[in-house]
């Protein structure tokens, strides 16, 4: 029989306001096993924890029940308290009488009654708790960063800086990501390339960092500290170790008409290409969909012009499996497709472009060499209309847009408007907005400069329709402040498209068993307290894969993720979760049902000899659980007919006891 102490927390008035805490501690004192019961204002405070520690000593407690906030909040706190007073931390159970009681029930009578019942359930469980000791597993001191944008680059640099080897897996032929496509950055207007490319070079030159460009993660096994990751190096048909990046091949390739994805299809590239001048690694890549040699064996020009002999038409996808201790997801974002937004005539007119396309138009390395020219006729536009929130904050248009705010559009639109007016004072620039959101350092000042110094026309209202007529774009819009309809004959319309997570994120999340929200952004372990960790141990989040972010935020989060990774890789041994599945070999029939449902492959079988009660021996096939691999979901326990498989910390008898206590 346990000697249980019950500690009821008032949480100020958070609990005590609705629950009669005195009545709860009195009622629970009468429960079987309980030898001490009290209540206190803030159990989680030092003074509250001291009450627990003292009671453990004074009443020789073997089990603790804390009736307080959610175990997701302070279970760890109270387990530490118990451990520091000398009892096993897993002898602590929390009755959630705040989030799941006092905060959702108004009536003191029913609230108190329910709090007592929840307390009873926790007591019934603790009565059957057993001390648990977590297992230890070694840590592979190497990190994997998936995605080579600014988030991945910064994370990798910071981890490498601490002395741990890092691999970056980037699916494109070069690292750099979206930032490499940007022209200037807000609010300081420094050139993106000027601040990004040195970092890309740092990555390339860092001895601790390996770049797997043009590669994808295809399989992830294992668990925190011990991931086995299979990386597919897509066939590049150019040997990275030999190619000098001279670019001769990219000039001679006869296949010229391939839309250049780096410039968002606004110009063309060859079938063998280097995405941009500062690409890292600076090696050519053959696009197998367009290369004549690869498609029908006729050509071979690049091979002829390559003095280094780097071309290899017989290259195959390569798979390599590496071990990692930690994985950082930095898969980034993309603007959502605009083809469903017929009202803005994106598909009908070349002169309706997205903001990212506008970045390329303004960029000196872009398709127009940095001159603002209309894509349709190469004329200089005089009237520009920027439409904000295209697909963002779009509750009504969920099938094509997003409900959330994409966060970065207000600022880059202000930047675009300001730069346009700065370079081309002869233009009229209109910005249509729902709200202008500028919560960042120097952001509002930046926006005000656009309006006040550069004379950008900010109009609160949405554009209803854009219709191409002749060489003009007729823009119909409403001005909500003036309450009137506006018609503008524009030369160029720029859509601030909502951003969404990269499409590769969802299958990756499945491989990593990391959770995602309904928008396919990775979920953090805690929205406030653990914002750069995924709930899946050993998986960390960097950049826009977790939610829309601008560059400074991304870099900050990248650094934070790196520091979490470093913290993990510093450890030689990891302490596991002791709440793992455990088979009773005497009951196990060896049927393999548990093995079939285990998502981690944690269950294997052995033939084992047993001494039977009648003194004979019998060899039986029985299940064994790898406690380092088991994550404790408990799926096997239900698949097991004989009940041989049980889950420590959530044993069948414990859950039965909770059910019984609740239904008493």
């Amino acid at each position: 029989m346990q000697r249980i102490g019950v500690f009821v927390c008032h949480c100020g008035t958070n609990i005590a306001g609705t629950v009669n805490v005195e009545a709860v501690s009195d009622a629970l004192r009468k429960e079987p096993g309980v030898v001490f019961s009290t209540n206190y204002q803030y159990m989680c405070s030092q003074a509250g924890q001291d009450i627990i520690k003292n009671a453990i000593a004074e009443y020789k407690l073997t089990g603790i029940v804390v009736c307080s906030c959610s175990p997701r909040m302070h279970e760890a706190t109270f387990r530490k308290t118990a451990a520091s007073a000398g009892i096993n931390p897993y002898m602590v159970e929390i009755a959630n009488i705040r989030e799941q009681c006092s905060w959702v029930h108004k009536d003191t009578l029913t609230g108190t009654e329910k709090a007592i019942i929840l307390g009873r359930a926790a007591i019934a469980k603790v009565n059957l708790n057993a001390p648990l000791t977590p297992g230890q597993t070694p840590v592979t001191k190497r990190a994997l960063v998936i995605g080579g944008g600014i988030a991945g680059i910064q994370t990798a640099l910071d981890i490498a800086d601490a002395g741990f080897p890092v691999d970056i897996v980037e699916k494109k032929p070069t690292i750099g990501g979206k930032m490499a496509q940007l022209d200037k950055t807000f609010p300081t207007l420094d050139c993106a390339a000027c601040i990004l490319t040195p970092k890309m070079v740092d990555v390339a030159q860092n001895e601790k960092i390996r770049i797997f460009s043009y590669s994808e993660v295809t399989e992830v096994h294992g668990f925190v500290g011990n991931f086995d990751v299979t990386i597919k190096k897509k066939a590049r048909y150019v040997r990275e170790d030999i190619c000098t990046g001279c670019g001769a091949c990219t000039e001679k390739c006869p296949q010229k008409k391939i839309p250049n994805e780096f410039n968002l299809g606004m110009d063309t590239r060859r079938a063998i290409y280097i995405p941009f001048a500062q690409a890292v690694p600076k090696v050519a890549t053959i696009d197998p969909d367009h290369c004549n040699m690869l498609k029908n064996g006729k050509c071979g020009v690049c091979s002829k012009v390559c003095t280094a002999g780097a071309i290899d038409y017989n290259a195959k996808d390569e798979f390599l499996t590496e071990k990692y201790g930690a994985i950082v997801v930095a898969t980034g974002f993309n603007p959502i497709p605009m083809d469903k937004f017929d009202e803005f005539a994106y598909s009908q007119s070349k002169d309706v472009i997205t903001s990212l396309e506008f970045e390329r138009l303004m960029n000196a390395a872009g398709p127009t060499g940095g001159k603002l020219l209309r894509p349709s006729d190469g004329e200089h536009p005089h009237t520009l209309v920027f439409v904000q929130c295209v697909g963002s904050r779009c509750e009504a248009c969920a099938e094509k847009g997003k409900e959330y705010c994409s966060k970065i559009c207000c600022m880059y639109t202000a930047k675009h408007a300001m730069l346009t007016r700065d370079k081309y004072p002869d233009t009229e620039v209109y910005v249509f907005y729902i709200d202008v959101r500028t919560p960042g350092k120097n952001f509002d000042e930046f926006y005000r400069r656009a309006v006040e110094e550069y004379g950008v026309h900010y109009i609160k209202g949405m554009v209803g329709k854009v219709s191409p007529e002749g060489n003009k774009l007729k823009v119909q819009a409403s001005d909500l402040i003036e309450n009137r309809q506006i018609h503008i004959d524009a030369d160029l319309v720029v859509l601030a498209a909502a951003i969404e997570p990269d499409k590769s994120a969802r299958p990756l999340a499945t491989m990593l068993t990391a959770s995602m929200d309904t928008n396919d952004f990775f979920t953090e372990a805690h929205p406030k307290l653990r914002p750069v960790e995924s709930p899946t141990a050993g998986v960390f989040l960097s950049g826009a894969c977790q939610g829309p972010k601008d560059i400074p935020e991304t870099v900050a989060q990248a650094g934070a993720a790196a520091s979490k990774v470093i913290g993990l890789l510093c450890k030689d041994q990891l302490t596991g979760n002791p709440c793992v599945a455990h088979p009773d070999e005497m009951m196990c029939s060896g049927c393999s049902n548990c093995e079939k449902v285990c998502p981690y492959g944690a269950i294997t079988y052995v033939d084992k000899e047993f001494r039977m009660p009648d003194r004979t021996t019998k060899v039986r096939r029985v299940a064994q659980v790898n406690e380092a691999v088991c994550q404790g979901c408990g799926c096997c326990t239900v698949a097991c007919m004989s009940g041989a498989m049980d889950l420590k910390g959530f044993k069948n008898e414990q859950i039965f006891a909770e059910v019984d206590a609740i239904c008493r």
Partner: protein
Amino acid sequence: MRKIAKSALDSLFAAMSESKKVYLPVDGEGGARYQLWTEGTVLSEAVNTVRSAKDFFFPQTENLVEFKMEGKKLDVIDVRRETEDFVIFGVRACDVRSFDILDRVFLGAPVDTYYKNRREHGVIVSLACNKPAETCFCQTFGIDASAPAGDIVCHMTDDTLFLDAKTEKGEKLLATLEGVTEPCADSAADEQKALIRSRLDKLPLKGLTADKFGGDKTKEFFNDPAWASLSESCLGCGTCTFVCPTCQCYDIKDFKTADGVRRFRCWDSCMYSEFTKMSAGQPRLTQKERFRQRFMHKLVYYPANNEGIFGCVGCGRCLAKCPIQMNIVKVMKKLGEGGDKND
């Protein structure tokens, strides 16, 4: 002796029901079973009920005592209540004998007050078997199906039911039935008895004797090699013991309720692997030993403690119900043959 027209049975049961609850075999899904008589209930013609009549005195589960908890206070509650009087009508000769066998267990010291309570309030109205079945072998144990024991003994012809009170209890009950029955000669049922006897003589198991068994035969049979092959296919289910009118083993279990514990007893079966398990383990580790226990108990151990009376009444239920058709008749025939040298 009194009699009543078969067509007027309803009035007989109605009259009985005025003072007591009346239970009688009624046909239903899966065979006949005892049911409370209410207007319109029809007496089964089946030779016997699927479950025996022992349930009336020794129910499958019975609440013995309750513990009520309030905080850390524990109250013990005696749940025994004086049973109401009841009549079991239509008990066959074999089942009537089974009550004697149970009585020796439960009414011998120490007296089982739960059993006694029920036994004292039950009036047994037996009914001779007009059509004993091929599985019947009550004769082996000296039971005469044409003349059962009981508080009132009945015989049924095609048109008439004869009732003969044999005990004080029976006479009292019969006295209350004078309004619906009429007197008749004590010999009125003799013809029916003779008919039944002639039928008993023709039963296929007529020749089976238990002569080689008895209380002093432990040594002869305990190590008989035949046990191995007889028990080979036994599934270890409890069907034979649960349909048996004389199996009297039970286990005591505690059931945690909303606010305390209910201690009840329930039938147990020596065929079960957990039977009589103690902290040190089970005394009988293999199905062979458990199987042997059941039959040794019926044929040797029970007679050893009860003046030679066998613990089987030859009702034939286990012959009909065993999933693999192993039964006491096969055991009795095979044991002592000495030919089986297996194991």
